[in-house]
């Protein structure tokens, strides 16, 4: 481990008490606002969770610290701050589940690793089945998870009710609950904490985070990239890693290659904060909705992606109407709770709902994109394997299946085709 990672300003209950008496004693810069250097070893484009995690693992696992993280907007204000905080690893296909499981394991100790509480809470994640076929699909996924060493259990409606007394398991509703899978280690991570915590750690390591720095073009000669043109001038680096959900296609165009990616709005909304009433995360693929209660007391509801592509970060009200109805079917009393805020993230959807983490046709240019709705939960895992890919110029064993070439060969990892739940 690089010894730069050990820093003097460390948060703990003792430092906080000390800080109560002397506020400056623990004052630590979370987000530095620096001017770019001329040359870096690696430039990571995209200051989202994935980009910052990539920089973090480049430093931690590969000893590279001369890094710039270039962000068009602000840290924590893209998808990293606009998601529903769900983490889990109970994916159907082995390839996906191993990648997400790696990520879940990294989440487990991330607070201690970066000395910032990201609040990974193992609330449990339920995925409901509403028909015989869905129940079969859930059983299949539970079995697959167990064989891949991932915790997963199958529950009957009555067992679900024991865990979540407020859920409606009446057979009389339009789409009654037939069963569910439960991943107990699934849960939530506080999205903002991930942004602030990684930014603070990168600052301690000496990584430059350049906010409001927009990349205008890649500097490519003879199909080798060696820098970027930005609104803050040209910056050079031996390697450039791109992790920019919502702008992946633009960067592909700069590198003159094509991507199988479409950018869609993904909406989520929260209720006004209420006292604790729901602990786990409940997802229902059939009715396209999921819900959990955030630590501040808001019910957080999400839906499937909006159908048409869009960069406006605004979605259609009908999506909110449909998914809210679905949630009220499951929890009739939520009808009384009030909608507080809605928002839309921007997700890059690939044909098989799985990411692309690979080298690109341009030498020294690497790309990490296409996470669809699953990006947040993969943050540390994605950073980990992407850092490996960048540092070694070849994929980590975990992201080998998530290659560019799978679209050519047809070797897709079809998570949505296989009724794997989306969120």
């Amino acid at each position, binding site marked *: 481990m690089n010894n730069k990672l050990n820093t003097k300003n460390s948060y703990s209950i003792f430092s906080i008490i000390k800080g109560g008496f002397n506020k400056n004693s623990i004052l630590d810069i979370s987000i530095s606002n620096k001017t770019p250097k001329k040359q870096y070893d690696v430039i990571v484009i995209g200051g989202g969770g994935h980009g910052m995690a990539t920089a973090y693992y480049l430093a931690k696992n590969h000893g590279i610290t001369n890094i710039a993280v270039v962000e068009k907007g602000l840290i924590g204000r893209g998808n990293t701050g606009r998601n529903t905080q769900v983490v889990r690893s109970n994916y159907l296909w082995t390839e996906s589940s191993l990648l997400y499981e790696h990520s879940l394991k990294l989440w487990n100790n991330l607070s201690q690793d970066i000395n910032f509480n990201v609040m990974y809470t193992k609330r449990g994640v339920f995925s409901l089945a509403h028909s015989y076929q869905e129940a079969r699909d859930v059983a299949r996924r539970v079995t697959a998870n167990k064989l891949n060493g991932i915790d997963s259990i199958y529950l009957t409606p009555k067992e679900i009710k024991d865990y979540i007394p407020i859920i409606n398991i009446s057979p009389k509703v339009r789409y009654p609950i037939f069963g569910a899978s439960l991943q107990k280690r699934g849960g939530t991570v506080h999205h903002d904490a991930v942004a602030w915590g990684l930014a603070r750690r990168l600052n301690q390591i000496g990584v430059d985070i350049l906010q409001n720095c927009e990349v205008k073009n890649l500097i490519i000669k003879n199909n080798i990239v060696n820098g970027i043109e930005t609104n803050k001038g040209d910056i050079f680096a031996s390697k450039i890693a791109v992790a920019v959900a919502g702008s992946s*296609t633009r960067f592909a165009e700069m590198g003159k290659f094509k991507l199988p990616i479409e950018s869609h709005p993904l909406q989520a909304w929260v209720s006004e904060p209420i006292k604790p009433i729901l602990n786990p995360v409940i997802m229902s693929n059939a009715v396209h909705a999921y819900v959990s209660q955030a630590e501040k007391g808001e019910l957080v509801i999400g839906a499937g992606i909006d159908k048409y*592509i869009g960069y406006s970060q605004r979605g*259609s009200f*009908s999506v909110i109407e449909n998914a809210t109805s679905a949630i009220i079917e499951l929890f009739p009393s939520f009808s009384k709770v009030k909608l507080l805020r809605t928002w839309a993230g921007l997700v890059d959807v690939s044909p098989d709902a799985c990411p692309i983490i690979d080298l690109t046709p341009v030498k020294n240019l690497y790309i990490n994109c296409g996470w669809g709705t699953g990006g947040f939960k993969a943050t540390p895992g994605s950073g980990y394997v992407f850092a490996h890919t960048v540092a070694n110029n070849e994929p980590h064993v975990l992201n080998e299946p998530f290659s560019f070439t799978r679209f050519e060969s047809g070797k897709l990892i079809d998570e949505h085709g296989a009724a794997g739940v989306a969120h």
Partner: protein
Amino acid sequence: MLLIKCIFCGERDETEFHYGGELRDKRPLNPNDLSDKEWAEFLYSKRNVNGIHIEQWFHSGGCRQWFNIERNTFTNEITNTFNLKKQKITREKD
């Protein structure tokens, strides 16, 4: 919630329509002449435009006709609606 002008039925709420993706290239007449790479590009690659985007919509809850619209994917403004033969039928007011 978009207000979409079906070229046959007039202005209707978005919920009456299905989005059919970006206007893509014609399906090759002899797909077997394409290499795997070319075929993959035809099948999967997307222009995914941030800006003026020509796309296909289907009035599934109405006349069940497909037509094209030109929409700014950043502002959601619809600047043009035309039928599949790309004849411009209407130009919306600014």
